């Protein structure tokens, strides 16, 4: 209990004094995760809608695979991305290993199936509702997907926020491909792991509280800006 209390006090001190290291790693956490969520959403949301609208051979297997990929172990993803980006790997020439870009790549691989899968669930229900109307209006597949994505945008926000939630708290993959380098690739989660390893539980807890506060703040801001749960909106 004492350590938790100390952690809360330390978190308050770090925030009140605008600790430069805390601000740096918090901003890096946001930069990496928000970028990864944007890329994953750009891929995953239309993919979910496509799987809802398009009938093709092995569609069921594709959806089952996508759902299974939601549980990709981050450490394995990190290891694979590490091997691909390492100097001897196929993309070693790009020099991305131990950079925020490598961390974003790893997160995109982890988050895309999650966002696509949640998007698919939402789009499938909407497609059942819209099917007859959109067929009757002689729409193209592209128009159907656009209509579903636009009308389902508030529900799809949940998919992206779920991705954000997973990304901001992720540590295994970004530790491997980022290397937790001070002033370069250190983020909140890797800093927590480092401080815990050093036995600095109060600092680790403080960073943990900041991480939770950051995740809550981002969710709150997005819900406020998108005006969900307001009046007649969805």
């Amino acid at each position, binding site marked *: 209990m004492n350590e938790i209390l100390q952690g809360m006090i330390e978190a308050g001190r770090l925030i009140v004094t605008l600790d430069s290291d805390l601000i740096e790693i918090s901003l890096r956490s946001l930069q990496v995760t928000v970028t990864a969520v944007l890329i994953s959403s750009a891929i995953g949301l239309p993919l979910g809608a496509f799987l809802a609208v398009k009938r093709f051979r092995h569609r069921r297997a594709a959806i089952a695979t996508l759902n299974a990929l939601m549980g990709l172990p981050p450490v394995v993803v990190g290891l694979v991305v590490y091997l691909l980006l390492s100097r001897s790997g196929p993309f070693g020439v790009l020099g991305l290993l131990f950079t925020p870009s490598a961390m974003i790549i790893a997160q995109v691989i982890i988050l895309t199936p999650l966002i696509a899968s949640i998007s698919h669930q939402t789009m499938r229900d909407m497609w059942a509702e819209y099917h007859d109307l959109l067929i009757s209006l*002689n729409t193209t597949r592209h128009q159907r997907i656009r*209509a579903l994505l636009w009308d389902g945008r508030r529900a799809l926000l949940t998919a992206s926020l779920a991705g954000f939630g997973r990304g901001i708290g992720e540590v295994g993959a970004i530790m491997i491909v980022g290397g937790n380098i001070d002033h370069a690739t250190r983020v909140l989660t890797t800093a927590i792991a480092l401080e815990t390893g050093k036995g600095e539980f109060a600092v680790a807890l403080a960073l943990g509280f900041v991480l939770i506060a950051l995740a809550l703040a981002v969710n709150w801001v997005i819900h406020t800006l998108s005006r969900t749960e307001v009046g007649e909106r969805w």
Partner: protein
Amino acid sequence: MVTRPILPLRLSGAVARRKGKTIVGPVDLDLGPTGCTIVMGPNGAGKTTLLRLMHGLERLADGTIDWQIPDVEAREAQAYVFQTPVMMRRSVLDNVAFPLTLHGVHRKEARDRAADWLVRVGLEAAADRQATVLSGGERQKLALARALIREPQILFLDEPCASLDGRATRDIEAILQAARADGTRLVMATHDMGQARRLADEVLFIHHGRLHDSGPAPSFFGSAPTPEARAFLRGDILE
């Protein structure tokens, strides 16, 4: 917009099947270019399936359905109003404008034309409301405006006034009469005998998926030729 006439429509031995079971057909039928055809029959007779078959929402298992121009083009000149209207999750105005935006009409022009249609159907006060909060009668008016905004040559209606009160039914019928006066061919399934008498130029009576009677409304209501149709008109329960 398709300007070439798509009617008359000819069905020859048209059949709809689901899981190997024949739901409708074989149906032979000619629909002329004008007027209002009412499709009548007991529950489960196949009225909705026949409408969906003609519109292309139901797969044709056998026979032919011929418009005067190729099917793909003919589809552009048709519209369909469902028994339970689909309310897209957007404003009333954007729901009505949607079919125009699909066909490359600029958003502002589409919204202007949609606003005109909302005045015609009496929904102008609800333009900025979310469509999903409308009442049943308002939903049907929206669905009609959305169907008519592209000036279809033929409009299919699947029991559009089912579960509406008298006032809403009267409003819907007024919109349909205006559409017919503007040259839109109406094909409507209904249970409502009074509505059928008020609107029909021609009646199709369908039972067990087969077309039992078809002909001008006065002669159908005056002396229906088959016992099933006569029983239906008397209000008897048909097995």
